[in-house]
């Protein structure tokens, strides 16, 4: 509350530190906060990736030999939690949202800059707390889903820290969501209509609605779970008359929308990147907007498809099957529209474009297995197996993480005023794409043939396929080397990019790169056609530049 009723002190910004030090300060500048989110998220991605490598090393042999079994469970729990709550959600929402949304609505900052800074600074301490819990009495070991009664009966300190950390991260996410909704709805430049906004604004509006509506339910659920652990109440403890399936319903009421919280912003980002590099307007703007909203509405009513084997009644299974399968329709529209955006363009094949196209191919694959998983009889066989593991990695890694990389290549000149090396970028794409598919495609077969997920030991007949998968994981680990090298080399001695290296029409490129502190010298431009490529206005722009 006190955050909201602060009095204005306009000279605050001049007191902020300058230079790189500002990234370690309680900065109120949305651009600084965006970069803070991105770098913080990437550091946690490296930790989560290290944990993933540990899992793949363990699974290179069918017996449990690399680490103790309970440590293995802690590793997989931390891997899931870190990747979801500390890497993908903060980066794809917080980082790009904070950096881009004020530009897109023609504002100088977010609606609530101080709340924004608070939202970011909740993340590092809760993340460190989570990682540190491993060194205390062992981290949580009930998986990122923390299903009771397992989460009640495993060592408690780690689980409690896990709950506190996720609660803080959820709070951060809600604050961010409130900020995005207020910024997009209320802070638009005069004269800018909703249907003229770049697609990422719509994606963030939909995402933030999901965050605001579903994250509080997770918070409530985790509070009840912590009561079960600390005060020995029986909400989810069957010994005391509780009901474990209620936890699953409440948990998935958040955690299925969480999937859309992770992919919708990626849909928005790819809608910004494709038109720029294929020099064509975004195909079917209106249907894209409606399909985002369709995904938001449907996304809230499909949660029980995670529970087809947990004793849901038949009518519920039927309803959730149909609802889930129908999400494929608005999602499909988006993919057809993106391909239609490419069609007939003048495509520059660069790192950003390659990662975006890789995203389309990976996500279509993950989407198809998703529709299959929505079918109750299909799901019954593969539920909680490596098939599901493969499916959601195709969505969150092959989908969202590819777009995160694509966006970094696309907006790096915006942030630094330097170009990235295309050679290293394409090498990064090649290794990531091959490594990713080598790692996760074989896992579909593993799941279908009888390998459950979250196991440290498995039937020896699966060893060969698991080793292929581990080699893929190794390639994915290696792929971060050219990426990091590229970032550092480009910051040090990258070529100057000019203000608008891609000749893009979206508002963020219509100011200098890197942008001035308050985004615009003078008034914000009114961009009525952010995708007006091929039209006279775009040609003018191009002639002016060349």
């Amino acid at each position, binding site marked *: 509350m006190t955050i909201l009723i*602060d009095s204005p002190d306009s000279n605050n910004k001049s007191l902020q530190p300058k230079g790189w030090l500002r990234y370690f300060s309680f900065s109120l500048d949305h651009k600084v906060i965006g970069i803070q989110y991105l770098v913080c998220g990437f550091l946690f991605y490296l930790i989560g990736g290290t944990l993933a490598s540990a899992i793949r090393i363990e699974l290179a042999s069918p017996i449990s030999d690399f680490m103790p079994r309970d440590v293995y469970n802690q590793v997989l729990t931390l891997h899931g939690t870190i990747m979801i709550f500390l890497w993908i959600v903060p980066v794809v929402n917080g980082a790009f949202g904070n950096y881009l949304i004020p530009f897109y609505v023609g504002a100088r900052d977010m609606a609530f800059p101080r709340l924004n800074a608070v939202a970011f600074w909740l993340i590092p301490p809760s993340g460190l707390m989570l990682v540190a819990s491993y060194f205390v009495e062992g981290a949580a070991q009930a998986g990122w889903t923390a299903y009771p009664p397992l989460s009640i009966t495993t060592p408690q300190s780690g689980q409690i820290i896990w709950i506190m950390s996720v609660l803080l991260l959820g709070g951060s996410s809600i604050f961010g969501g409130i900020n995005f909704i207020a910024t997009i709805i209320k802070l638009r430049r005069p004269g800018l209509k909703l249907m003229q906004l770049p697609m990422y604004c719509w994606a963030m509006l939909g995402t933030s609605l999901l965050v605001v509506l579903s994250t509080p339910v997770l918070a409530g659920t985790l509070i009840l779970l912590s009561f079960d652990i600390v005060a020995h109440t029986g909400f989810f403890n069957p010994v005391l008359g509780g009901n474990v399936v209620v936890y699953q319903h409440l948990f998935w009421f958040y955690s299925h929308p969480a999937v859309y919280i992770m992919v919708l912003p990626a849909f928005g980002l790819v809608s910004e990147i494709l038109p720029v590099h294929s020099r064509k307007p975004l195909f079917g703007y209106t249907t894209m907007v409606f399909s985002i909203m369709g995904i938001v509405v449907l996304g809230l009513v499909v949660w029980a498809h995670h529970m087809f084997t947990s004793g849901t009644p038949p009518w519920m299974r039927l309803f959730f099957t149909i609802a889930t399968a129908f999400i494929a329709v608005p999602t499909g529209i988006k993919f057809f529209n993106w391909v239609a955006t490419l069609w007939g363009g003048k495509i520059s094949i660069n790192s950003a474009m390659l990662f975006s196209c890789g995203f389309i191919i990976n996500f279509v694959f993950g989407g198809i297995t998703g529709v299959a998983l929505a079918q109750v009889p299909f799901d019954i066989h593969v539920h909680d197996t490596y098939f599901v593991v493969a499916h959601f990695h195709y969505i969150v890694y092959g989908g969202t993480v590819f777009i995160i990389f694509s966006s970094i290549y696309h907006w790096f000149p915006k942030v630094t005023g330097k170009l990235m090396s295309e050679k290293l970028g394409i090498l990064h794409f090649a290794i990531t794409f091959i490594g990713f598919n080598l790692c996760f495609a074989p896992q579909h077969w593993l799941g279908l043939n009888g390998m459950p997920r979250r196991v440290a030991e498995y039937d020896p007949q699966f060893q060969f396929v698991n080793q292929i998968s581990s080699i893929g994981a190794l390639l994915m680990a290696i792929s971060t080397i050219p990426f990091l090298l590229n970032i550092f080399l480009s910051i040090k001695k990258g070529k100057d990019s000019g203000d608008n290296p891609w000749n893009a029409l979206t508002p963020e490129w219509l100011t200098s790169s890197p942008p001035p502190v308050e985004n615009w010298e003078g008034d914000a431009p009114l961009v009525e056609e952010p995708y007006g490529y091929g039209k006279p206005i775009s040609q003018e722009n191009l002639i002016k530049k060349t």
Partner: protein
Amino acid sequence: MTTLNSSKEIKKDDSELNEHHEDFRMFGLITFLIADGMTFAGFFAAYLTYKAVNPLPDGAIYELELPIPTLNTILLLVSSATFHKAGKALLKNKNSDTQKWLIITALLGITFLICQLFEYFNLPFGLIDNLFASTFYALTGFHGLHVTLGTLMILIIYWQTRPKEGRITSQNMFPLEAVELYWHFVDGIWVILFIILYLL
């Protein structure tokens, strides 16, 4: 709130943008209250599911007395009205009236909390006796936490509306309006809670 765009643009068109500024703080608060309401919705959903599918063990006590919660409902509804009076008075620059109404609202809130505690101590079941008891305490406790926070904020507002020195005036109504909206929200949740928990 330090919004650069507003502080900068105010120079151009003071009155219009100032109102715009007020407006989205309220908008943000409403969004936050929707989120908060979803937490309660989750609790209510859990309570109703338990009630429908998890029979209590034989001999479990789950009878609730109605008089105290009914009194509490009246207390909160009256306090909503008195808070509204406070806002009206501030609009007319009658700060002492505002303070009077605010202190009445705060006292009503405190009475509510005392009654709630009295009910807790006189209930025949404890937190971990059975599923119903746990859910009962979780719901009312979470709501009581909201009332406690609200009462504290009312007291802060009371301090800040003191004549002449207070920061909250008819020109700067937002803090009072924000707490008022929050207080109405907490009342509304109590009415739903009362119906679901005590009457159903």
